[in-house]
C-alpha cells in the first residue's frame, strides 16, 4: 500500500515488523476487526520526525544513559557530583564533533586542555564570563539563540521567573542547556553524605534502586526544573600508588533520573576519563 521507503518514524509502527505481507492482508480484510485497520491507518499517517533532528548525538558509552539515546533538543540537564565537569564535557563532545557550536557561561575554572581531551572541538567553542547581576537571563537567552550546546555555571544566581523564561526559550530554540556545579573548594562535599544531599520527590513509588539517585526534580536550586539529572558517584581512580604511578582512569557510576520519558531511573558504570582522555565503557 503505502511505500514508506527509507523513512522510519520514531517509534516505528509495530505492523511494519510483522512477518505478514500487506498485499496478502487485503484478502483477509473483510474478516479483520475494523479497529485494527483504524489503528494501522493512524500509524501510517502519523507525522514522521527524523530522530536525528530532535536529538543531538552523544558518545556511544553514554547512549544508554539518556532516554532518547541522545540529548533531546530543548532539554535542560543538570549534572552534579564529583566528576560532573568531565561528564558534562563528554556529553557535549559528540555534538561538537558533529558540527554544533558550544558555549560556556561562567566557569572560569574550566580546563580547556581537558575539554580538548574529552573530544570538544576548540574551533567551535566560545567562553563567556559570568554576566553582571540582573542581566543573566538576557545573556543566557542571547547565547541560546545562536549555539546548540550551552554549559552553564550553576553558581549563577537566577530567579525562578528568569529560569522559567529561559526554559521556555530553550524549548523554542531547540538548544541543550547543561548546568554543572564545579567541585573546586576544600570544604566538605554535601553530595557525598547521602543524608545531607537534596531529596527525591517522586510521584509514584520507584524501585529500590532509585534511592541512590540523590537529586531533586522540582526543587533544584534557583527554581530550575531540569529534564534529566545526572549524578556522578562512586569515583575510583586507578593507577596511583604510594609514591609511584600516575592517575590513569577513573571508574564512576552515573545515576540518571528525569521527568517524563526519563522518569525511569537508569544507572551506568563507565570509565570517565578513560586512558585516552575521553569516556569509555567500563572494562
Amino acid at each position, binding site marked *: 500500500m503505502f511505500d514508506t521507503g527509507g523513512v522510519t518514524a520514531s517509534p516505528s509502527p509495530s505492523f511494519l515488523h510483522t512477518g505478514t505481507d500487506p498485499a496478502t492482508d487485503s484478502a483477509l480484510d473483510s474478516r479483520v476487526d475494523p479497529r485494527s485497520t483504524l489503528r494501522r491507518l493512524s500509524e501510517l499517517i502519523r507525522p514522521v520526525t527524523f530522530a536525528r533532528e530532535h536529538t543531538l548525538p552523544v558518545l556511544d558509552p553514554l547512549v544508554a544513559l539518556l532516554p532518547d539515546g541522545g540529548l533531546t533538543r530543548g532539554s535542560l540537564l543538570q549534572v552534579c557530583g*564529583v*566528576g*560532573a*565537569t*568531565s561528564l558534562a564535557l563528554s556529553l557535549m563532545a559528540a555534538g561538537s564533533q558533529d*558540527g*554544533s*557550536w558550544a*558555549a560556556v557561561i561562567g566557569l*572560569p*575554572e*574550566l*580546563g*580547556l*586542555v*581537558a575539554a*580538548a*581531551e574529552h573530544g570538544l572541538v*576548540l*574551533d*567551535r*567553542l*566560545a*567562553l*563567556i*564570563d559570568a*554576566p553582571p547581576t540582573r*542581566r543573566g537571563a*538576557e*545573556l543566557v537567552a*542571547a*547565547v541560546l*539563540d*545562536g*549555539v*546548540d550546546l550551552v554549559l552553564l555555571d550553576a553558581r549563577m544566581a537566577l530567579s525562578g521567573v528568569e529560569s522559567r523564561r529561559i526554559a521556555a526559550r530553550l524549548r523554542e530554540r531547540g538548544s541543550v542547556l547543561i548546568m554543572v556545579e*564545579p*567541585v*573546586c573548594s*576544600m*570544604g*566538605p*562535599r554535601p553530595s*557525598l553524605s547521602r543524608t545531607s544531599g537534596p531529596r527525591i520527590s517522586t510521584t509514584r513509588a520507584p524501585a529500590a534502586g532509585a534511592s541512590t539517585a540523590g537529586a531533586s526534580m522540582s526543587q533544584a536550586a534557583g527554581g530550575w526544573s531540569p529534564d534529566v539529572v545526572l549524578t556522578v558517584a*562512586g*569515583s*575510583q*581512580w586507578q593507577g*596511583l*600508588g*604510594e*609514591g609511584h*604511578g*600516575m*592517575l590513569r*582512569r*577513573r571508574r564512576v557510576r552515573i545515576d540518571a533520573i528525569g521527568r517524563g520519558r526519563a522518569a525511569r531511573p537508569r544507572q551506568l558504570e563507565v570509565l570517565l*576519563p578513560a586512558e*585516552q*582522555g575521553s569516556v569509555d565503557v567500563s572494562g
Partner: protein
Amino acid sequence: MSPAEQRSADRVVRSLVLRCADWPLVAAGASPDEASVVIGGGRVVVASPAARAEGIEPGHRRREAQRRCPSVVVHHPDPDRDARLFSAIGGALEHITPRIELSVPGIAAFPTRGPSRYFGGDHALAIQVMNAVSGVMVGLGWPDSVGIGVADGRFVAEQVARSGGVTVLEPGASAAFLAPLPVGVLGRLELCDVLRRLGIGTLGAFAALPAADVVARFGADGLIAHRIAGGLDERPPHTAPPPPHLTVSIELDPPVERVDQAAFVAKGLAERLHSGLEAEGLACTRLCITAETDTGACNERLWRHEGALGVGAIIERVRWQLDGWLNGPTLLRPTSGVSRLTLIPDEVGPARGRQLGFWGGETAADERAMRALARVQGIVGVAAVTVPEVRGGRSPIEQIVRVPVATVELTASRSALSGNGRELLTAPWPGRVPTPTPALVLPEPLPALVCDQRGSVVAVSGRGALSAAPATLGEQNVAGGAGGATGAFPITAWAGPWLTDERWWDPVAHVRRARLQLLLADGRAVLVCCEHGQWSIEGWYD
C-alpha cells in the same frame, strides 16, 4: 585594441618609492652596527648589514645563521609593531603629498606628478622627501638606511630605491634599467624557477618574449609579470573611479578612544564593504581608510595589497592606522576620540572568486553563532567573550589561553587549532604532567599545605626527592598555620614529583616547580604544585 587604447594602456604613473631596507629590524629596536636578524617560520626574513657582512642571507635557517655568526641577535616578527611605527614615516610625508600609499611596512609610494611640479622637479622632490624622513630615521638610530627612487611605475621605482640614497630615473629609461636585473626580483617563485630552467635569467630576456606566447604558457599572472618586466605598470590605470555607493562609513557615538573598540566597529564595516564589493563582482586592491574626530582632525591613508584585501586584512590595517594615530607622537595625536570611520575602495579589480570548499568554510551554524556572540559582546563587554587558543606549555593553565573573540576571525580556519595546535598540545614537553589533565584548573593557584604524618610541611629537594611521604592536604589560612577546623584531608595515594625548571637563563623569570598528583580519602584527585617551598592547588580532577 585601438592605438589610442594601446597608448593609454601603456601609460604609466610616475611614482616615488621610499624604501627602508630592514624595517622590521628598525621597528624591533636593533642597532645597525650589531648583527641581528628577524626569524619567522624558522628562517631568516631580514638581516642587518652587519649580519649580511658575516654571510647571513635571507632564507637561511636559524642554525645556519647562528653558525655563521654565533653572536647574532634574534628578533621575532611582529607586523603590528612594524606597521605602527611605519605610520610615523607616513606622518612625516604628509606635508608633501596627501596620497601616501602604504603596502608593506617599509615601503611607501606616491605619484609624483603634482608634488614634482610644486617642488620644482623630481630631484628636488626626492631631496625634500629624504630630508623629511631622515629626521625620523636618525631618531630611530638608523641614519642611512632609506632609499628613494623616482621612476615610471611603482615596481621600477622600487628597484631603483634599492640602491640606496636618492636616485631619479629619466622617463622612458625603465626598460633599459630593468634589463640586467635577475628574474628573481619579480617575487614570483614558481614562475622564476621555470624561467631560470628555460634559460631566461634576466628581466630583459623575459621582456623580449612575445606577449602572446607568455600568456599561452604562463596565463594571466605571467602576462602581468611580463608587463612589469617590460617597465609597464602591472595594470593599466583605471580612468573611471569606482562607484561611490561602495563607500561605507559609520558614525561612532560616543567617540571611541581605544584602538580595540574601533577595531571591533571596523569589523562590521569591513564586512559590509566586502559584501558590497562581492555583489558587484569586484575585489578591492587599494583602500582608503579615513578616520575623523569631532574637532575636525582627520587621518587618511591609502593601503595597497598585492592580492585582494579580505575582511581580516582590512581590520588589521584599520588597527595599524588608528594605533599609529591615537598612540603616536603627542603632537599629532587627536584631542578627542574617533567619531567617524570611512572605508573608500580606491582601486578595484574584477574578483577572481573564492573557491569555497564543498564541506568546509562558513556554514549556517557558524553564522548563527557569530551573530549570537556579537550580541553577547554587547551585554557583557568585548573582553568577556573569549575563544581558546593553543600556546603550548607545561602546566594546564599555560597550554591553552583565552583570547577575545573580537580579535580573531571566527570563520577562517584557525591553524592554531587544526594542525599546528594539535602538535603543540601533544608535543613532548619535558616535565609536563601526563594526560588526563585536570578538568578544573584554578586561574589563581590556591595556597595549601601538604603535610606528612607528623604535621610538618613536605619539602621537595632540588633533585626531586620528597622529605617525607605526604599524608594530609589542608588549606592554608591567612595566619599561615595548618588548617585545623576546615579539616585536613587525608591522602590515600600520591605520585610524582614532576619537576620543571623553566627559564634557567633568566634570573628574573627563573622558576622551579614540582607537581604532585594526590588522591584524597573522599575519592577526589588533585594536582598540587610546590614553588619555593610553598604548596598550592593547581587543579582538581573533577
